[in-house]
């Protein structure tokens, strides 16, 4: 078993991996960029090494610097987390060359699945049904026209090297094809350095259902149940759940067996996810495979009782899977909310800044995977994911109830967070009835929110509390009371202290 693991990541996932290391008696090495010195993952690690400027290319994406830290710290393995270098075959190979075990699949498996066109070709060879369209990049506009006419509009143009919704264009009619193809190509070139674009039939209102797979290095591959990830905004997942409300045991087995075939076709080892699009007739089509641990892995952990990061480490250390497919049970229901530092009242504009107050929920059925803490300043240099709040229950209704309760307990001050978005989603009748597809969130956000008038009792309490805070003055002051740069009190310090003195006098009367 490894003695020391370097976590080539930051934020909540780095904390989660460090915790797994400590649970297994393994030392954890953290790396941090200049803006991450006070991060939670640095505080939780056993060793921490600075790796330079905030820009990812200079720090968390810098292969040389990461391997340099691995050598200096004598780490015997590297866990890449998700994002950053987790699906970078060059990095995986560089680790192997440096004699450090990469906790994840082999470079060859990453390559096989990393290009969406190559993955589709592999699916054709393996007899796996995939979303109809081309297997290779489009060579010309004329070819695109022909294929689109054959498979029928609407069609989706997608970047072969793509992800996160970039390089994707939905084409409704032949007249749009030329300009959208050019747009997709140039965006793909800009985002991934590769303008290869292919074409797929666009499934109407699909559900996005993905299957977790796990394979050891001895030829054993299993599926661990599916996750429904249809709630997306601009192709970014916002809320995920396990199991999918529309997948019964039979469909799970069928999708799981296909997912295992896909993993085997790629020579896959360690943890991975096979993504499917499911149409309204419950036909499922291979979409792509993600060759890493995913953000939403906690929902699978909760319904299976398995610790995926522990298993990743054990597989990388050469152990066999400690259970068979038959022993995998799905129990209960879990729903995850991705809490971002974004302003829901201002088009989800990122909201970095200092967290002046944090009242975080806990209690039955609540799991929080977090990288934030009260007093921390959210940097603006990275994806503003604050934490993942997961509700678990014996069934979907209980999971929703617990998560709703936890969201009502959740309070963050000093920055804006998208907590209110989840209250909206969880109270939506269609969501509660599990009527979801990838267009759900866009439709929900388009709805005009009826501004319910302020509850007069709450206003009354607010007035009284405002007065009480004023009377208590500096005694009540937390970080929230520190005057801002433009605060009248700070611009007139004598006035501020007079007010505080008066408050003290009153309080002592």
């Amino acid at each position, binding site marked *: 078993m490894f003695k020391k693991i370097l976590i080539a990541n930051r934020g909540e996932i780095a904390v989660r991996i460090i915790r797994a290391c400590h649970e297994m008696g393994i030392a954890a090495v953290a790396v941090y960029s200049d803006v991450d010195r006070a991060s939670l993952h640095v505080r939780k690690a056993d060793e921490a090494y600075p790796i330079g400027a905030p820009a990812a290319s200079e720090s968390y994406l810098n292969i040389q610097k990461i391997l340099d830290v691995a050598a200096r710290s004598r780490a015997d393995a590297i866990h890449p987390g998700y994002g950053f270098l987790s699906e970078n075959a060059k990095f995986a190979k560089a680790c192997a060359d440096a004699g450090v075990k990469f906790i994840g699949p082999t470079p060859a498996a990453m390559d096989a699945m990393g290009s969406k066109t190559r993955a589709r070709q592999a699916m054709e060879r393996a007899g796996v049904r995939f979303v109809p369209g081309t297997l290779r990049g489009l060579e010309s506009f004329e070819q695109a026209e022909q294929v689109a006419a054959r498979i029928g509009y609407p069609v989706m143009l997608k970047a072969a090297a793509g992800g996160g919704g970039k390089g994707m264009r939905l084409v409704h009619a032949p007249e749009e094809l030329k300009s959208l193809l050019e747009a997709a190509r140039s965006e793909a070139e800009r985002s991934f350095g590769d303008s290869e674009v292919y074409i797929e039939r666009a499934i109407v209102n699909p559900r996005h259902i993905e299957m977790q797979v796990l394979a050891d290095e001895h030829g054993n591959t299993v599926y661990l149940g599916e996750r429904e990830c249809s709630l997306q905004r601009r192709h970014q997942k916002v809320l995920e759940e396990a199991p999918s409300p529309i997948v019964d045991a039979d469909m799970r087995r069928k999708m799981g067996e296909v997912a295992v075939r896909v993993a085997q076709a790629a020579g896959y080892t360690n943890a991975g996810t096979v993504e499917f699009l499911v149409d309204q007739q419950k036909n499922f089509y291979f979409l792509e495979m993600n060759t890493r641990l995913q953000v939403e892995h906690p929902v699978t952990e909760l319904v299976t009782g398995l610790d995926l990061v522990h298993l990743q480490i054990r597989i990388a250390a050469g152990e066999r899977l400690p259970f068979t497919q038959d022993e995998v049970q799905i129990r209960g229901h879990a729903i995850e909310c991705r809490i971002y530092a974004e302003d829901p009242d201002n088009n989800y504009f990122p909201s970095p*800044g200092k967290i002046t107050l944090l009242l975080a929920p806990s209690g039955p059925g609540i799991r929080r995977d977090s990288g934030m803490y009260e007093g921390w300043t959210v940097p603006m240099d990275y994806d503003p994911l604050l934490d993942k709040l997961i509700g678990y229950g014996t069934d979907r209704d209980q999971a929703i109830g617990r998560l709703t309760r936890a969201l009502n307990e959740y309070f963050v001050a000093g920055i804006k967070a998208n907590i209110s978005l989840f209250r909206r989603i969880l109270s939506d009748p269609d969501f509660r009835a599990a009527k979801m597809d990838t267009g759900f969130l866009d439709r929900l956000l388009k709805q005009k929110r009826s501004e319910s008038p302020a509850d007069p009792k709450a206003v009354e309490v607010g007035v009284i509390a405002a007065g*009480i805070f004023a009377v208590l003055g500096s005694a009540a002051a937390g970080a929230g009371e520190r005057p801002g740069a433009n605060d009248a009190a700070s611009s007139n310090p004598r006035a501020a202290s007079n007010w505080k003195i008066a*408050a003290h006098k009153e*309080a002592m009367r």
Partner: protein
Amino acid sequence: MTYDITIDGKNYRLDLNRAEGRWSCRLDGREVEVDAVLARPDVLSVRIGNKAYEVKYERVAGEMYLWVGSARFAAEVRDPRSLRGRARAVEDHGPKKLIAPMPGKIVRVLVSQGDEVEAGSGVLVVEAMKMQNEIKSPKKGTIQKILVSEGAAVNAGDVLAIVE
């Protein structure tokens, strides 16, 4: 202590006294039975009669907010007796500063000094994290001063413009 408090656009007069750790409270002349305990800085546990509330205090960019449960209210508290209180009251009807909510760059200035603006009309556009954010005027009035120009880098809390 007496305060003039504005919440949700309405004004209230609050008389508050504390004796032997107990509060007595009169809201717009009406007596209210209040029991309040500071749980931790910025967090108040309030009982009104037997109903319980958790109230959080937040100060962002010079504005004060109170959260009663999950409902947020912008609030202003003025002590009508103090000189500063009176000056503050005048100030509230006076010029308002537009503050940069986060670090970024001014990409567009939409108005000029002397322009008339409505509450909510755009004054400047700040860009940060590859997104653009329009800073709007908080009130109807005239642009008294613009303190930044296009291309300027700003920090959170910087005064960008003044509307009077």
